[in-house]
């Protein structure tokens, strides 16, 4: 086994660490490539039952009859549950993880009692001796649904007399941002550009469908091993079951992709209910179709942008009106809309600003978290709008942006001044330049280029009062252990904690092990969402490792007879003044400390900034700890006969603050590009009256190996972020600017804009025909 751990310091000017910043082999790599890493679906137990969920096949209906007697009578069926057996069961669906804030009152029925509000809403749970029997039983459940009028368009849902899905008027949330003087701003404009942009539903399409295994142990604790981004749903599950919080334990495993789709409760509640009922271990694995209809999607948005600008490229006013489809239940829509409102003007300084953003309930699939979380939908609009404004005033697209970028120290839409560097201009210019020589157009194949810059938060909303914990300890042989509840969803969240501890304690990465993702055993770290894991848990690991380091250094200083600041810990050695006489293995120092009873471990907590909410009328205040900035540039070829698009060149430039693992940062950027390209071009969820008609990977088309271009990454390190070593975060930022960059390139290629994503061949051909008809 060759795990790369660099033996000597690198000398590039931008690398000053021994373990941080390098493309080290992640601690999880070897297990994954050799097939040894277990995922939640790979665990089995003796006497384990197999579960199935019975789902409604209409989106708006009354449950007139539900008869499970034939299913119950099938030999091998152990348990069939309906709402009749648990009339009071509800589950909270907002604010995953820990927060001191009061929750919204958005509890959802666990199983349909009477009213079906979306296609696929669960009617019954089955547990049987084998998966085959459970599936047979699912087919034996009889139910009658009486169709009720439904509403499938958020604008229709706002009209008087529309069917009410949630609350009294279907409005789930609304946010306002009011700043400056709009009348004066528009009066000062030479041109006013107004456009409507539409963004679609999107499926997370993680390769591992939702899966888990639950059992009740000898202490009556409900244990759940599940694929999740949020082990701290143990509280929501306990509340739903009427159990004390310390009697539900959620254990993660390596997660086969999340992207926000495993942020809400998925299978764990059904597992817990069935395990509690049957007192046997129960396994539930979603089929791909279950996964398509069983978890929330990215919110479709309609964004109306009205921009005032002078001929010399100054934006004088911006009015933004946003409507998002929240679907049938309230999950994270209020927060997604807030992210959108805060990011509505993008990385631009706009002093006269009016944003009104609403989330509206419909009988569509409920919508919730997805990489980019509202900030991405805003970017899809503001960056297309910047190109449209540039066209209207006849200015170069990058030049218009340069004249309006936020600079370090400028206030954003909410009046808050991000504490870190804003390097948007540098990123945009470098990305654009890296596209190199233009590819020539040929016949019906038109070439175009586009760029999109972005602002995306990292860390949760500051009014949620986010905290994260990690424990770091050193063993007698000089190895290091990190314990933290953080879930690893594939970006190397656990490995990054290992690198941080390795850097601070001066050991090499293979000498560190990270135990993670157990809600009752590892210190609670919060969610792996919101581009927060490195920022929050990375800082907790940094604090813990630093506390241990300080104690070790004190002992080393005394032994060598020097001041503590002359002690160096690096590559498993302790030394002072580069003096060979004053040097010993790290393990020897740990033993020395142990002999003296020095405390060789530390549990640390990191707290994000705590604030109150934004002003409800003006939207002014602090929403997030900080923001990341960067840009994405692409070159596309559009076949104007067929509408087919190929992305030829793709450059992403991001200021990540500081790479922890360079290869992992590149990987996030590559994957974000892929997610964004699919969103822009091919991923389409088709619903007919709420019924999903594209529930498989042969209908829902995400980019394959044949579709993806090479992605060039330009990684800048301002070292100004709030994360450990000045890092920011790259999970969500990697995706945010991709789709508008592609949209701008297509518009550049064909001379007209497709205002709706995905920009499928059909839509492109239609836009071309409309442009021709308009002359």
């Amino acid at each position: 086994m060759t795990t790369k751990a660099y033996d000597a310091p690198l000398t590039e000017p931008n690398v000053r660490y021994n373990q941080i910043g390098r493309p080290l082999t992640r601690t999880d790599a070897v297990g994954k490539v050799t097939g040894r890493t277990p995922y939640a679906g790979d665990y089995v137990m003796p006497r384990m039952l197999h579960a199935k969920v019975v789902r409604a096949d209409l989106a708006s209906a009354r449950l007139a009859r539900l008869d499970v007697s034939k299913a119950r009578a099938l030999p091998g069926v152990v348990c069939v549950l309906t709402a009749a057996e648990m009339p009071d069961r509800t589950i909270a669906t907002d604010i995953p993880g820990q927060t001191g804030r009061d929750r919204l009152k958005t509890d959802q029925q666990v199983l349909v009692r009477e009213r079906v509000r979306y296609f696929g809403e669960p009617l019954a749970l089955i547990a049987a001796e084998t998966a085959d029997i459970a599936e047979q039983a699912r087919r034996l459940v009889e139910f009658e649904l009486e169709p009720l009028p439904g509403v499938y368009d958020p604008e229709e849902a706002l009209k008087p007399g529309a069917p009410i899905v949630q609350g009294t008027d279907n409005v789930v949330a609304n946010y306002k941002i009011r700043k400056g003087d709009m009348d004066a701003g528009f009066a000062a404009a030479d041109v006013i550009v107004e456009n409507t942009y539409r963004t679609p539903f999107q499926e997370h399409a993680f390769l591992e469908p939702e899966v888990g295994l639950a059992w009740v142990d000898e202490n009556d604790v409900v244990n759940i091993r599940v694929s999740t981004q949020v082990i701290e749903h143990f509280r929501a599950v306990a509340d739903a079951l009427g159990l004390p919080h310390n009697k539900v334990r959620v254990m993660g495993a390596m997660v086969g992709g999340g992207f926000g789709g495993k942020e809400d409760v998925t299978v764990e509640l059904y597992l817990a209910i069935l395990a509690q009922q049957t007192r046997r271990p129960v396994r539930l694995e979603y089929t791909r179709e279950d996964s398509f209809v069983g978890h929330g999607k990215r919110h479709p948005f309609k964004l109306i942008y009205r921009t005032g600008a002078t001929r010399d490229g100054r934006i004088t006013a911006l009015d933004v009106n946003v409507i998002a489809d929240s679907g049938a239940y309230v999950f994270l829509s209020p927060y997604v809309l807030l992210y959108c409102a805060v990011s509505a003007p993008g990385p631009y300084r706009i002093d006269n600003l009016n944003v009104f953003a609403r989330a509206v309930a419909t009988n569509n699939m409920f919508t919730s978290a997805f990489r980019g979380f509202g900030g991405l939908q805003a970017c899809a609009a503001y960056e297309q709008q910047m190109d449209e404004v540039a066209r209207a005033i006849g200015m170069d697209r990058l030049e218009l942006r340069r004249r309006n970028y936020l600079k370090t120290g400028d206030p954003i839409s909410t009046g808050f001044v991000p504490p870190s560097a804003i390097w948007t201009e540098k990123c945009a210019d470098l990305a654009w330049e890296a596209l190199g020589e233009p590819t020539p157009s040929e016949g019906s194949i038109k070439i175009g280029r586009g760029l999109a810059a972005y602002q995306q938060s990292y860390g949760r909303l500051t009014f949620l009062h986010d905290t994260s914990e990690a424990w770091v300890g050193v063993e007698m042989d000089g190895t290091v252990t990190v314990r933290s509840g953080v879930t690893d969803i594939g970006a190397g969240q656990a490995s990054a904690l290992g690198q941080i501890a390795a850097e601070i304690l001066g050991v090499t990465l293979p000498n560190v092990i990270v135990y993670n993702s157990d809600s009752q055993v590892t210190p609670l770290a919060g969610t792996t969402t919101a581009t927060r894991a490195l920022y929050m848990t990375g800082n907790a690991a940094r604090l813990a490792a630093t506390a241990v380091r300080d104690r070790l250094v004190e002992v080393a200083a005394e032994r060598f007879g020097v001041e503590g600041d002359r002690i160096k810990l690096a590559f498993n050695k302790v030394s002072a003044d580069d003096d060979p006489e004053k040097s010993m293995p790290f393990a020897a120092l740990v033993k020395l400390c142990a002999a003296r009873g020095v405390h060789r471990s530390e549990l640390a907590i990191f707290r994000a900034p705590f604030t109150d909410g934004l002003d409800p009328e003006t939207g002014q205040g602090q929403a997030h700890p900080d923001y990341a900035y960067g840009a994405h540039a692409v070159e596309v070829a559009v076949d104007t006969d067929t509408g087919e698009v190929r992305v030829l060149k793709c450059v992403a430039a991001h200021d990540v603050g500081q790479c922890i693992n360079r290869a992992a940062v590149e990987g996030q950027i590559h994957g974000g590009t892929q997610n964004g390209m699919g969103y822009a071009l091919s991923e389409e969820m088709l619903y007919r009256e709420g019924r999903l008609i594209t529930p498989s990977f042969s209908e829902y088309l995400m980019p394959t190996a044949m579709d993806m271009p090479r992605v060039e990454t330009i990684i800048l390190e301002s070292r100004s972020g709030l994360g450990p070593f000045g890092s920011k975060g790259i999970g969500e930022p990697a995706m945010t600017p991709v789709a508008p960059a592609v949209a701008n390139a297509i518009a550049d290629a064909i001379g007209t804009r497709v205002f709706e994503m995905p920009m499928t061949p059909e839509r492109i051909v239609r836009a071309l025909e409309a442009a021709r008809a308009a002359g």
Partner: protein
Amino acid sequence: MSNEKTITLRINGKAAQATVPAHRTLLEALRGLGHVEVKCGCEKGDCGACAVLIDGTAVDSCLTLAWMAEGREITTVVGLGSGEAMHPLQQAFSDLGAAQCGYCIPGMIIAADSMLRQTPDPTEEEIRIGLSGNLCRCTGYVKIFDAVGEAAAVMRDGGETK
């Protein structure tokens, strides 16, 4: 069930017996025998996560009935190499950071191995075609292409890893 039959499968060079009905897929049978390194992503042949080699050729085990694999040589990613002696593909995927969530990787490495048996010196286009039946949602395939290219070079040099 009356339509069950006991079959012998050769998996990673070892014989294993399974008593399964006619409709049982090779994917289900392999996982039932503890070969959980074979991943289930769609059960429809859309994603390739369940790919295994049958007599050296990659197939989606979700589209193969277990009975059909009787007597054939089945290789999973575990059969290619271990942490102590990794296959050049495993080594390259590990070294270059080509695995993120890792769920597609057992199938991806199997597909790459199958392709390299046919095409030892592939162009990037040939690598893309060889992996076109395997979906990945995390990596954009970029480091995967690099890893397959590097492994191909190592294998042409006699299989020694760096």
